[in-house]
């Protein structure tokens, strides 16, 4: 790792101020950034630690409205009883990110600020039609995820939290890479007041995306059987040493069936 200056922010305003130093990066759980710095793929001059900012932590559930602070860890999301009672799918998703030690450190804000194309949370937030709240504005998930490791965030903008309305039904299923446990394909399905939304991670060349053929089939009947015979195009899907685009296209349908079955269980 190259030399770096560490700063611990005491508030969001303090963090925004500290981020103006040199080529600073925000540090949340560090489960991606620190390994990237160790391999020198990332070399910020300064790190602004967000994890000691009280206002970025915690989960509130008010009726069906869920708000999760940006510095809330995956373990906290996985174990939150109130959240589990209104949207168990997101708890299930959080409980299957990385491993227990990673879940103790990694945060939802860090995950979506990085927007890894194989990360789990982007699928949930897109399917749940969530709003990403920053220190400057609110961004709909539809407009937030803009490409591989790309988001609508501007320089110095901090994800302070996410908020969504818990849907009537939701489910998530992923096919984890056997070595890394990242999603080779992960599908989050949600049936809410705005109909059925289905988001796919780990498969798209441009990161997370909504699958229209699957949404259309599930809108008719929200049941795994409705996906029999449905296929999704392989155009725009990733081909790499782990799987071809055609294989991933098939996985999208298989994972969607499992996600719907989980949502209906």
């Amino acid at each position, binding site marked *: *790792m*190259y*030399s*770096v*200056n*560490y700063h*611990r922010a005491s508030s969001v305003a303090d963090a925004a101020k500290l981020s103006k130093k040199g080529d600073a990066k925000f*540090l949340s759980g*560090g*489960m991606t950034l*620190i*390994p990237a*710095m*160790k*391999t020198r793929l990332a070399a910020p001059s300064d*790190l602004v*630690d967000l*994890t000691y900012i009280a206002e970025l932590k915690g989960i509130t559930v008010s009726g069906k409205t869920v708000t999760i602070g940006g510095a809330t860890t995956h*373990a906290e999301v996985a174990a939150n009883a109130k959240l589990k009672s209104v949207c168990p799918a997101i708890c299930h998703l959080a409980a299957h990110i*990385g*491993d*227990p*030690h*990673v879940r*103790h*450190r990694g945060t939802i804000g860090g995950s979506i600020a990085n927007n890894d194309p194989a990360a789990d949370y982007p699928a949930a937030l897109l399917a749940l039609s969530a709003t990403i709240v920053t220190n400057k504005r609110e961004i709909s998930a539809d407009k937030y995820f803009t490409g591989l490791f790309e988001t609508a965030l501007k320089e110095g903008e901090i994800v302070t939290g996410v908020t969504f309305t818990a849907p009537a039904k939701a489910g998530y299923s992923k096919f984890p890479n056997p070595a890394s*446990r990242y999603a080779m394909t992960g599908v989050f399905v949600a049936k809410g007041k705005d109909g059925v939304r289905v988001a796919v991670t780990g498969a798209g060349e441009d990161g997370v995306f909504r699958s229209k053929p699957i949404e259309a089939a599930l809108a008719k009947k929200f049941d795994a059987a409705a996906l029999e015979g449905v296929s999704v195009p392989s155009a725009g899907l990733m081909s790499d040493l782990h799987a071809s685009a055609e294989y991933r296209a098939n996985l999208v349908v298989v994972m969607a069936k499992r996600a719907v079955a989980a949502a209906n269980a």
Partner: protein
Amino acid sequence: MSDVSLTVNGRKVSASVEDRTLLVHFLRENLGLTGTHVGCDTSQCGACVVHVDGKAVKSCTMLAAQASGSTVVTIEGLADGADLHPVQAAFKENHGLQCGFCTPGMIMSATDMINRHPQGLDEATVRAELEGNICRCTGYHNIVKAILAASEEMSKAGKGKAKKAA
């Protein structure tokens, strides 16, 4: 440079370290606590697992500066004097190791796992929870056996304590 202050295995320690110092290097090189191992150095193998404020974390993927102000427990801090911690004793009894390199991380992960499952553990849960710890010798069989035995032992001891208290 960062001034870091931590409580490590019950002892207050302070030092001035480079900001890029990883917690595992601080433990091993500044404090001489070489029980915590660096295996893969890429956040995968879990040989470096320690407890920070009661939670198992990979100390190769955290800066010492991030941990400043925290309470850290390493493998050296588990035993009560000459008495092994129940998880250590179970690994010994069940021969939950061969070369021993992964063992400190396995034991710290197992202790955390048992703490998070006070209702008890089954084999499938233990295997799933061990996702972040790699052992290249044992095939995990005796590690899983040791963790299940320790879990049972600790829940018995916990009930014993509760009875005493009542």
